[in-house]
Structure formats: structure tokens, C-alpha cells
């Protein structure tokens, strides 16, 4: 383990008052950042400094700080969730940076995710895609059949789980040159396509979710694969292929 030390850094951060006004990059200096701090703790430290200087702090999204809620975003030095793989921004630590570094921080950049303020974007398009069909229509009456009467082969259950592990952070969209949401939608479609419970509504589900995805203004997939590389949960491109197969067979019905 490398012992923690303090470093001084320079930050270039996107500032934008609200969705209507134009934004621009601003430069900030921050000293004595512990390399044991997380990236978001570094931003807390900067905000504390800004508030003490009577300046407006930087707005950024964050919540669980355990890598699971999907709320944190940030394009850091040109990469979604920064210079490490398989993690969200809240899991990125300052030991990845060196004394004297300049770090560039931007919001997710995609037409379907408009900026709300500074580094915060609106990702409700994902919610609307899910509302279009990302569910099994079952009533909560307490009369559902015993769970073990729906056996699921372990391999299918494992694959469904891997698809369901998507945290909806939007890194896939942010990093895609086309602004495509197909990794997210593919993961949702796959989860239900792989399970017997999801089969009944499979046709409508994939047609409706894809239609909604297009209406939200996401781009198309050109198989670049950047989404898979930057996905903090390792969601596989296989899910896009499965969605395409589901979509094709649904379209032919």
C-alpha cells in the first residue's frame, strides 16, 4: 500500500447556471488533497473552500457513495467516471492522480441528457424507457404462486442477474459517440427475455422500449463498444445483440 500523502491540483470544471444559459470552463486550485480521499470528497473539499470564499459551490450528483445507486456521473479527463475501469466516480480515489495534475471535469454530454446545472444532467429519459415496458405485469395481491414453482435454469438466472446489475448511471450514453442508450435498454430487455416470467409480454416490451428510446433522442449503435469498456458494472455487449434479436423477432410477428 502506498501511504497517503497530500497533493495540490488544478481543476477545470464546467459551470452552467441552468439549462437555459450557456456554460463555460472555470479553473480552480485546490491544495492539500489527501490521496486517500475519494474523488467526490475532493469535490466536497473544493466546495467547502468555495463557500468559505463566498463563491457558489459546484453542483454535482452523488448519493450512496458505494458504487451502487448510479447517481454520480462526471466526465473526468475525457472518460466517463474517470481514469479507472469498472467503477463509478464515487469509487475513484485521488491516489490515481499526481501532485500538480490538472483535472478536467465535465457533465455527461448527450442530447438526451440535458444539463440542469453545472455537472448535473437530466437522466429521466431512462425512467421513461423503463415505464414503456421494463416490467412484468403482476398484481401485488399476495396470492402469487410459490416462488419455486417457477424454476429457472441457473445459467439463465445468472445471465439475467448480470444484465440486471445495470445501475442506470448513463456512462454508456455519455461515452458513446452516437449517444446511444442501447446498452442500458439491452440490459433491461435481456433481464426479462431470459426469465420465464418475462416471456408473456416479451413482444410488446421490446417494441415499446425501443420506440421510447428512439423518441427520447438517443442515437443508434454502431458497435464501437465504448459503452462496454466504460460501464462500471461490466454489462456486456451481448445484451445489445439479444435486444436486436428480440426486436427482430417481435417485428416479424
Amino acid at each position, binding site marked *: 500500500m502506498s501511504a497517503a500523502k497530500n497533493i495540490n491540483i488544478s481543476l477545470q470544471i464546467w459551470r452552467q447556471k441552468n439549462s437555459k444559459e450557456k456554460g463555460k470552463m472555470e479553473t480552480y486550485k485546490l491544495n492539500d488533497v489527501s490521496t*486517500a*480521499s475519494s474523488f467526490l470528497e475532493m469535490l466536497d473539499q473544493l466546495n467547502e473552500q468555495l463557500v468559505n470564499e463566498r463563491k457558489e459551490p459546484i453542483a454535482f450528483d452523488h448519493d450512496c457513495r458505494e458504487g451502487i445507486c448510479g*447517481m454520480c456521473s462526471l466526465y473526468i479527463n475525457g472518460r466517463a467516471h474517470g481514469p479507472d475501469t469498472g467503477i463509478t466516480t464515487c469509487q475513484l480515489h485521488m491516489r490515481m492522480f499526481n501532485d500538480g495534475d490538472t483535472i478536467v471535469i465535465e457533465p455527461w454530454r448527450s442530447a438526451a441528457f440535458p444539463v440542469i446545472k453545472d455537472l448535473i444532467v437530466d437522466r429521466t429519459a431512462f425512467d421513461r424507457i423503463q415505464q414503456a415496458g421494463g416490467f412484468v405485469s403482476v398484481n401485488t395481491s399476495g396470492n402469487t404462486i410459490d*416462488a419455486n414453482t417457477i424454476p429457472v435454469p441457473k445459467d439463465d*438466472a445468472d445471465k439475467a442477474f448480470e444484465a440486471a446489475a445495470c445501475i*442506470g448511471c448513463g456512462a454508456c450514453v455519455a461515452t458513446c459517440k452516437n449517444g446511444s442508450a442501447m446498452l442500458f435498454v439491452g440490459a433491461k430487455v435481456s*433481464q426479462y427475455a431470459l426469465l420465464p*416470467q418475462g416471456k408473456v409480454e416479451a413482444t410488446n416490451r421490446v417494441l415499446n422500449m425501443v420506440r421510447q428510446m428512439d423518441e427520447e433522442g438517443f442515437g443508434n449503435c454502431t458497435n464501437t463498444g465504448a459503452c462496454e469498456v466504460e460501464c462500471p458494472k461490466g454489462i456486456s455487449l451481448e445484451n445489445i445483440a439479444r435486444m436486436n434479436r428480440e426486436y427482430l423477432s417481435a417485428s416479424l410477428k
Partner: protein
Amino acid sequence: MKLDSKIPEGHISQKWTDYKDHLKLVAPNNRPKIDIIVVGTGLAGASAAASFAEMGYNVKAFCYQDSPRRAHSIAAQGGINAAKNYQNDGDSTFRLFYDTIKGGDYRAREANVHRLAEVSGNIIDQCVAQGVPFARDYGGMLDNRSFGGTQVQRTFYAAGQTGQQLLLGAYSSLSRQIGLGKIDMYNRHEMLELVKVDGKARGIIARNLITGEIERHSAHAVIIATGGYGNVYFLSTNAMGSNVTAGWKIHKQGALFANPCYVQIHPTCIPVHGTNQSKLTLMSESLRNSGRIWVPKKKEDAEAIRAGKMKPTQIAEEDRDYYLERKYPAFGNLVPRDVASRAAKEVCDAGHGIEANDTNEGVYLDFSTEIQSKGKQTAYAKGNHNPSQEEILSLGKKWLEEKYGNLFTMYQKITDENPYETPMKIYPAVHYTMGGVWVDYNLQSTIPGCFVAGEANFSDHGANRLGASALMQGLADGYFVLPYTVSDYLSGDIRTGKISTDLPEFVEAEKNVKDSINKFLSNNGTKTVDHFHKRLGLIMWNKVGMGRNEKGLQEAIGEIASLKEEFYKDVYVPGSSDELNPELEKALRVADFIELGQLMAIDALQRKESCGGHFREEYQDAEGETLRDDENFKFVGAWEYKGYDIKNEELHKEELKYEFIKIAARNYK
């Protein structure tokens, strides 16, 4: 005020069934005339909102996050309990009920807990029907594992992400209803006041966190499902936005707040690294199935480790104190959370802590024994009966990786240490709050029409909570309790009609909210909100933390009162009210944390006994175990708000009756 728990008569196994049969109903054609507000969209809130909408009511749901899918239920790792007895190890509704009451140190309500155990099986059925991908065995059946405080395998799980999968299940039901137009979803909204009309809950005042607009929303009933208040300590495992504001606002409007001093300290978190730390990260309790907890027996070894002069792997087997296995041979490393946490504090207080921070707080969670045994086992299974030490290590690590890989990676990212090579460092941290708004058997607070569900209420966990039981309570309340009890209440409202938000009560509530916001923005003090929150956290951790005593609690009560005065005088909140303003959001929440913190200390002071997560140092036996006082303290302590000075709050007692379980000292030896 007289507390009426409304626990039905009859045998425990029949109470809920009989009661449900006699609850009043709202006919399907009348449900669209009735509006329900749900605040919070975690397991309890999302499942409740989806259920009400499915029944035909109009639902408005609110969450402060950008999407309901991000509620902090998502972070629960290990699993959810249910008395299915799929493993044929003798599990039953009664055993789950018994374990939960015992785990709660006999300070939970029998009838509520039994109902929870009763519907637990339905929760699994419901979630599977929704497509929640639980772990399966090779026969396609659901898999189970065990958790601290039990001797059966009743925990259903989805790797280390059970909370996420359950929440996404509830979120999918919620999304379906939003898509159908039966739920109006208000993301990035925060409830800042409850509106009462003729003594009944009839709506809320909410702030749109993006535009700053103050909105009035009316309804025939209001459900609060906003989670726990662990962030009163500043550092906790809760999400940064988790807060008590909705619960505290209804408290100020007349809802009693019960057992605020019951806070669960989870034994396996990553220790604090430094003063800029914002958040603590939990390592799943399931790791205790494979890890052995120890500290150096000799203080000089602990000192050498802290100074970086020695590595844990250099400490000989006989110089390690596996203190849980030594003290609790029957349960060993799987003792309940409060017992494991206290034992860790004890060895660190005695100078054996291993973390090189200000407090030296940290113990080892060591996987080397497991690596050896599983490595050898795997080699044998492959037909290699004479494996080299190298082969054993490699196979053992592979075994661990398959089981806990994501947790080990997470630990390494945070600490920069490889837990396959060196033991993990862990220490207890604030995790879950068992106290909350007082509710009766219907989950209704002392304000008619205001219901409270999940972690936000107090009813099911007593003084402590066993692992994998919080997810169970959230979904039980939302899917299977509230739909019945809230309908019973609403049956009186079918002729009420739409409630106008022009009523004077709404006007006044809105004015109060705006006044408090303006007060903060024009305060022009000198210190940040976090400055005060961190100071509150330190008082709470040091004096209302894992061990409490009379002197410390009295000091805390005074210190928090002074902090409150100073906060209102000297806090600086930048920005304006008509825009996205996270500092303002924090200020409004911290104001409530400060008051609740003081009430927690007051509650802890009056409870002159030790139980579960509440350890009063004056009340312990010769071996340092908790000493309950059933004669004088077998009650729920429910507090009534009496104005600005929290010290004036009045205590009401709900006697706890144990008719179906024999109350006994809790023994895990």
C-alpha cells in the same frame, strides 16, 4: 395523549388473518376518487405506491433523487429473510418471528413482528413473479444462505446486490403504474411540511429541487417512507442525501417519535481514513461466513502495526486474539451485529486496535484460514490429494473470488490493499436506525391519515436488527400491510371529494416553509453547513455512540443545544431559493438532525438499561454483556414534541407484552 397500539385480540398466528377479514374496504369504483401521497421511493415507498395504484387509487410519489431507482435500499448487499423452509432445516414462521424478537433484544412488538414473519414468504413469491433474479441452484430452485444471529438458512440473495435487485423489482412495478398514468412521480422533490386539516393529514408542502418552487399537494392520506436517520452522525453507511426531515416534520405536527436512541452499529465497515471523509462503506456481513476476526494479543504488536513496522501476516497464530470465537463459541464470528460491534470497541479501547488513524480504531477480518481449507478442498475435489502450498493458495483465492469477488475489489479500490494477501481492516459504523416515528398496528402515526413505513417507523426491530430483515420489513409494509390498513382508513373518505390546496392550512404551511428558507438564505453567517453537521456527528459518535453513560449523555444534551443556537446564528447558506441549491437542501436537513440528535441523547439517558444497539456502560454484567431491565424498561419510549426546546419533550410509554414468546436474557455463547 394515550397510546393505542390497536393490536388485535386472539392467538398470535391468527391475529393478522382475522384482523384483515374485518378491515373496511373501499369499493373499486370509489378508489379513483381518492388521492394518496407517498413520500420516499425505497422498498417501502415504491412497493406501497405501486400497490395503491394497482388497486385503483390516485397516487403521487415523491423522492429527492433524480430517479426513484436510486433510493438507498439499493445499497443493501446480503439478502432478505423469508420463512420458506426450502432447505428443510426446520425453519418456520414461528422461528423467524422468534429470532427477530430475540435479535431485537425483546424491545419490538410481538404482533407486528409475527405479521412480518407471516408475509415473508409472500414477498419472495411476489419478487420472483416480478422477475427479480435471485440466486438459483443447479436444479433451478432458489438458493439460500445464512446470516448472523440465526441457525437456519433462510436468506434469499442476488450475489452481493440483493437490495438493488429488490428495489429494481419494486421500481419496475412503480414504473408500470407511472406509465399507465396512475402514479404522478415527482423526482428531485423534497417534502418540507405536512399539512393537517381538521387534525387529519391532508397533504404536504414540497420543494422542487431544480426550480426551487414551493408546491402544495393534497391527498386523503399521506405515507412517509423516507428511511432512517443514521446521518445524524454525519459519518454513516447511509447515502449522503438520506435524512430525517419528513419524519421530523410530522413529529413537530404531533406524531410521536419512538425509541430514537436505538441505532444499529454495523460491525464490518472500512475504518475512517482521515478528516475529509464524507461517508463510510460497508463490507457485507456475509463475509463473516468466511472471515475470522482478530487483533494482536500483545499491545506492542498492535503498536508496531500502527507504526508500519510490522505486518499482520508476521504475527504468529498464538499471538492473535480471535476474540469472537473465544467469547462466543456457539456463534463465533456470526454473533449478531450489536454483539460483534461492541466486542470490537472493547478490544480497541483496550489498546489492541490496528488502524493508523487518530483513534486507532480497527480490527482484522482475516480470510487466510478459509483460503487454506477451501484451497485444499478444491484440490482434493479435483483428484489432487497432495497439493503444494502454492496450489492450495491459488485455488483458495479463486474460491474466495467466486464468492466475494466484487466486495474484495471494492475494498481494494478504497483502501489500496489486497485482501487476498493481507487481512481486511474493519471497524463498526452507524448503519441502521431501529427508532422512528411511532405507529400503531395499522402503521398509522398519532396523526390520523399519516402512515409511516419501513425504516422510518419504529415497530419491528426492537433495540437491534438482525441481518437481512430490513429489506423484509420495507417490502412487507409496502406490498402487504399498508394496502389493507390504509384502505380501512380511507373507507371513511369516499364522500370527501378532492381536497383543495387553497385551504388556509395550505397557505399557512407554505408560508412557514418559505420563511424558514428565507431565514437561512439571509442569515449571512460565517460557517458552512457541513461544519455544523460534522460537529454534531462528533458529539453523537463520542457520547451517543456505541457506548453511552449518564455523564456523556448529559454533556451531549447541553452541547447539542448550544450547537443549535450557534447554527441558527452563524450558518452561511449561499445561492438563492429559486434554483438548484444543494447547500440550502443540506441546511434544512441539518436543522432537523440537530434537534433529533438531542432527542436521541435524551432518550438514551432515560433508558437506564442496556439492550441491543443501546449500551449504557453503567448497565452490564461481569463479562461486559448487556444488562436489560425488563421490570422497568420493557416499553417503547415515544416522545411528544413540545416546542423549540427539545428538552421539554414528553415521554409516553407503550408497555410491551410478550404473550407468545418467553422473554429471556439474550445469550449467544
